């Protein structure tokens, strides 16, 4: 179930929330929608799920456009809105049945799906409780179960793990991965590790526009700047800036060096090398030659977090 998003633009009054967003999601892909607050993630999702139309642009879900076949599109989508709104006065089973009926599921399928969702989402013990009495994590599970009750081919989840404790985050993530295997999933998040843990592909949005699109690895590759290496060494020198610094700087592929301070004869430096070069060996030889004791040598790979910071700071 492929999704094609083309030139989406949305104005709230005068304010432009998203600006000419285009992307594709392939069948079976889990796409992470990453971006700072106010980037336009929720707005994009609300448009795809037919909650509101875009000011410009189109979305096509498996050959059905949101403008012309809104009902068809909505039939195929399971949606967990931001903040997971729920009917607090209904009990879990009542609520899931209601959601299923609104999707026009027949009785037999409903029964089967209900049992399967209660099983998969771990709702067995709470199934006759009012939703208002459930803990946040259980509410989140109910929200997910609701989104998947009609076994949709597309899942759209707006911050599915927000406000959960770390254990529950891992649980819900596994659930999404497990259920997402056969589905096309778009999920939004602020949490970078979540994208790395769950998504096949990431789109980073900032200020209403897409600033990066690729697998987590690709993005790390692409936005890797100069290689940076942190070292700590022990050397009995009076002035490290005069006696060590120039020697590190003189190494052939080193572009710049920063002194990170030190005490008791231990000194820390950060070395930046040209892209694609490995200077660890050079550093080691130099240290041996100068009789420095190399206490630590760490290569820092650009994390997705840094990519994110780079792309989204204004």
């Amino acid at each position, binding site marked *: 179930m492929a999704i094609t998003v083309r030139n989406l633009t949305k104005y709230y009054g005068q304010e432009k929330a998203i600006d000419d967003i285009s992307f594709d999601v392939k069948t079976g892909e889990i796409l992470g929608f990453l971006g700072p607050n106010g980037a336009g993630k929720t707005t994009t999702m*609300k448009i795809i799920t037919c909650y509101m139309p875009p000011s410009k642009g189109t979305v096509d879900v498996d050959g059905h456009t949101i403008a012309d076949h809104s009902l068809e599109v*909505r039939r195929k989508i399971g*949606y967990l809105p931001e903040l997971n*709104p*729920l*009917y*607090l006065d209904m009990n879990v089973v*009542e609520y899931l049945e209601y959601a299923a009926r609104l999707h*026009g599921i027949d009785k037999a399928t409903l029964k089967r799906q209900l049992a399967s969702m209660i099983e998969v989402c771990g709702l067995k013990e709470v199934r006759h409780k009012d939703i208002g009495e459930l803990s946040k994590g259980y509410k989140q599970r109910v929200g997910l179960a609701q989104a998947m009750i009609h076994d949709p081919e597309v899942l759209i989840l707006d911050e599915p793990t927000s406000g959960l404790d770390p254990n529950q985050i891992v649980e819900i993530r596994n659930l999404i991965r497990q259920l997402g295997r056969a589905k096309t999933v778009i999920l939004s998040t602020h949490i970078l590790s979540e994208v790395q843990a769950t998504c096949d592909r990431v789109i980073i949005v900032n200020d209403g526009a897409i600033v990066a699109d690729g697998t987590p690895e690709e993005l790390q590759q692409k936005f890797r700047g100069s290689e940076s290496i942190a070292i700590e060494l022990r050397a009995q020198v009076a002035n490290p800036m005069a006696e060590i610094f120039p020697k590190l700087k003189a190494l052939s592929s080193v572009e710049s060096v920063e002194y990170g301070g030190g005490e008791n004869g231990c000194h820390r430096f950060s070395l930046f090398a040209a892209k694609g070069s490995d200077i660890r060996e050079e550093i080691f030889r130099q240290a041996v030659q100068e009789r420095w004791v190399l206490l630590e040598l760490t290569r820092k790979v650009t994390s997705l977090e840094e990519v994110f910071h780079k792309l989204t700071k204004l």
Partner: protein
Amino acid sequence: MDFKRSLTNVGTIFQKELRSYFNSAVAYVVIVVFLAIVGWFHSNALFLANTASLRLMFELVPIVFMFIIPAVTMRLLSEEKKSGTIELLTTKPLIDVEIVLGKFLAAWALVGVSLLLTLVYYFTIAALGDIDSGPVFGGYFGLMLMAGIYVAMGLFASSLTDNQVIAFIVGFVLVFLFFMLDKVLLYVPEGLTSIVEFLSVDYHFSNIARGVVDSRDVLYFLSLLGFTLYLSVLSLERRKW
């Protein structure tokens, strides 16, 4: 549009709303209020002439409606807006008309059933002595139509805001306006009186309550009902503007 599917959708929402009235005890309060007020009234009026008691009764119930109905309808849409569940509802494969109709029918059914329960009193009177059943059924029929209009107005008020108190007040004001129209005829400019009178709910109600069901009165109720429901649909679609 698939009519059968629409019917199922309206039914699903109707059921859910009705259940929610009973879960939250709103339903019991409404039923008890009707039975209590009408019952108290009857215990006083039982010894009066039947015709007089009927007329009084049909003046009293509209006033009860004016307070009860906006209270019954106030949460129908405003609560969904406040809690965000409106987003769940409107992203299901439903059209907005089905949502409005389902909710309207649930509230109307609740008020209608509470009203019909008060017929019990009439059956006791009828058992005790002679009673002309024509005006009774005419009156109840008129009250049902009136309740429908008021429920639609309350629902419209609820669609305007995410605040239930505001929904109640706006609903009350709308109902009050239409209730008052034929009572302020004296203050209306000469040329407008017939129009204002025609717009008034009470005017048509008293026609029907007399036992003569004129198609013009029924048409009035149906068109005002349709128009008000249509306004709710428009208001629900405001998110798309």
